[in-house]
């Protein structure tokens, strides 16, 4: 239990530290790298919560795929040495309001539901039980996910081809 607490503290410090670096970095590329670091630390926290499948997904999709996608997106933009922004602009105030509202809603949900109740100890890997639940009880949402992926694929192709012309 002690080692678990130590690992949790380490991972959460890494996750928050990566996020703080993300906000304070001047170069966009450093921001992407610190975000990838945060993703990795979150994977560690998932592992501590015995959600090893989620941890692997976090590493494969977020730390791998999304970070690469972000770096490609940065490379796609025109290089511009932008100085520090002057002051709080309108869109920053707007995003502050949205983020604060989101935080309050999440906190409300957390405190209304007893998620800190003791859970059943899991001894087998969770991949198998995820598979059984997903394909037996949630078959329709699973098929809908494939349609969502298809829409994302076609949308990306259409947008990128429009840009090429």
């Amino acid at each position, binding site marked *: 239990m002690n080692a678990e607490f130590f690992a949790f503290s380490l991972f959460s410090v890494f996750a928050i530290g990566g996020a703080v670096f993300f906000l304070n970095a001047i170069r966009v*590329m450093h921001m992407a790298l610190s975000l990838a670091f945060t993703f990795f630390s979150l994977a560690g926290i998932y*592992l501590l919560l015995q959600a*090893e*499948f989620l941890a692997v*997904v976090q590493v*494969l*999709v977020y730390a*791998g*795929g*999304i970070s*690469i*996608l972000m770096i*490609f*997106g940065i*490379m*796609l*933009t*025109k*290089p511009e040495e932008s100085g520090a922004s002057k002051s709080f602009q309108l869109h920053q105030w707007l995003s502050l309001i949205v983020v604060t509202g989101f935080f309050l809603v999440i906190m409300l949900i957390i405190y209304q539901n007893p998620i800190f109740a003791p859970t059943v100890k*899991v*001894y*087998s*890997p969770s*991949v*198998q*039980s*995820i*598979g*059984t639940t*997903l*394909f*037996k009880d949630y*078959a329709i949402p*699973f*098929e809908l*996910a*494939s*349609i969502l*992926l*298809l829409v*994302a*694929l*076609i949308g*990306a*192709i259409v947008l*990128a*081809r429009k*840009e*090429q012309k």
Partner: protein
Amino acid sequence: MPISKSFLIIGIFFLVAVLLPIAALTLGRFLRASKPSEEKATTYESGVNPIGGSWVQFHVRYYLYALLFVIFDVEAIYLFPWAASYDVLRSEIGLGILLEMGLFLGFLILGLIYAWKKKVLEWK
């Protein structure tokens, strides 16, 4: 093997993977001679003098490839729980399990065919 023990092994591997490059780089810093000159400090560009910064604008084609990669990455994620619980599901819902995954893959193959037809996969 109990699950906590296999995680311990993964943790040890992870620690070794993190510590090895750190140890190699710190050891190298102490061992190597350091006589920097202006010529040595320039970016290596196959023997030619580099022009401009390292940040150049990529073609949108690269981004499309990254997007395709992420989409098929997510698709591959779904295959793992399917394969892991195949035996259980096979005995409970029979061959419908093959149909489920076939439909899922079918939609994405449709997208791949679309990308193929739109000549996204060709490289000029």
